């Protein structure tokens, strides 16, 4: 017997109602049920950070939450950052300008980690930035251009 639970979740300010199995991970809910494939799935055990989203404004791993746990909550995914493709969030624009990505697989998770980080640390040192990025794995860049992008973004957002 499969349990089915009715949930209502607000994602990027839009309300969604769905029936889900309790074991459905929030990362899979966002991608498969809502078609929001910007949230990437890497390791699926909380290590790589690719699936990082905002739950009530705080960065969390979407692969370590069940969709049913987000019932009644507000979520922001990477799709919620830019108004449209020609009007990127300053953080996204900084990644573009400073070459802060190569393959881009880790980028959504990194952006969603940095949104609250830069709110709490508007003037971060390089050390702060590297520490903030420690929960997100990038296999392409060697991180240097990501750090540059975060510095640029911090400057623009101040």
């Amino acid at each position, binding site marked *: 017997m*499969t*349990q089915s*639970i009715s949930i209502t979740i607000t994602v990027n300010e839009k309300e969604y109602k769905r029936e889900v*199995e*309790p*074991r459905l*991970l929030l990362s*899979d809910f966002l991608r498969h049920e809502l078609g929001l494939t910007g949230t990437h799935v890497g390791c*699926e*055990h*909380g290590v790589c*950070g690719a699936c*990082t989203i905002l*739950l009530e404004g*705080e*960065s*969390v*791993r979407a*692969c*370590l*939450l*069940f969709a*049913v*746990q987000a019932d009644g909550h507000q979520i922001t995914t990477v799709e919620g950052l830019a108004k449209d493709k020609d009007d990127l969030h300053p953080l996204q624009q900084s990644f573009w300008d400073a070459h802060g990505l190569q393959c881009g697989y880790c980028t959504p998770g990194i952006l969603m*980690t940095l949104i*609250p*980080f830069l709110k709490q640390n508007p003037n971060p040192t390089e050390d702060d930035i*590297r*520490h*903030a990025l*420690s*929960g997100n794995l990038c296999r392409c860049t060697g991180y240097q251009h990501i750090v540059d992008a975060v510095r640029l973004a911090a400057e623009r957002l101040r």
Partner: protein
Amino acid sequence: MKPAPFEYHAPDSLEQALGLMNEYAGEAKILAGGQSLVPAMNFRIVQPGVLIDLNRVQELSYIRQEGNVMRVGAMARERDLEFDSAIADRTPLLAEAMPFIAHPQIRNRGTIGGSLVNADPAAELPVLMLALSARLKAKSASGERWIDAQDFFAGMFTTALAPDEILVEIELPFMAPRTGWSFMEVAPRAGDYALMGVAALVTFDENGKCQTAKLVYLNAGDGPVDAKEAAGMLAGEMLNDTSIESAAAVASEKEITPFGNVHTSPEFQRHLANVLTGKALKQAIQRAGERP
């Protein structure tokens, strides 16, 4: 990767949760922050038949002072402990160690109770509970009891909790006057599991003699390791480099039993324990002088 199917309950009161634990004892797992349980479920290492989610039980998410103790609800998030001013003031050892626990994204969800019940020998919180002489309150449908931290951890990923019990509160005595503290660990990268770590506390009397000391280690055995002999060597002494080195040697060579892993040999862990103990004790001694 998908967890095996389970029956899901999300009670909104502790009473309901205790009723469910009573009903499904042995079959049910508590879902707290989920930062260790959900990965294990994703890998299907753990396949609970019933999951009781405590995230809607508001009454377990508090941090407050009462008399000479901090009372922390088991569902208080690690990130809240990290930034709590009373914790920083009353139990600064705990505040100092919080940022070493994984990453902010994990601490935003992870709870103190969840980490303690998970009882991972490489985790920081069990070590801190022993160092701070915490008491843990367990509740079941039929009653409640207090368990000293040193009796709570019963081996690798094992605690003294009965199948129908829920850890509900952690009681932390304020750190005494003239007490210095230090938490140090060595990890390959920030946020990774530490190869070795130590929590050190030293309390001095009015004449500058060490009254009591505590040295507790992570990843050094099948639970948090309380190096009582080494700490006992410091009590009653005027501390100097020689007494620090002797205590570090006893703790690292005799009292801990590290297993090694893919990143380290047991010998290297013992070496780290020795070096970290010396550094941590020196920092703790210095801080004790700054905290009359």
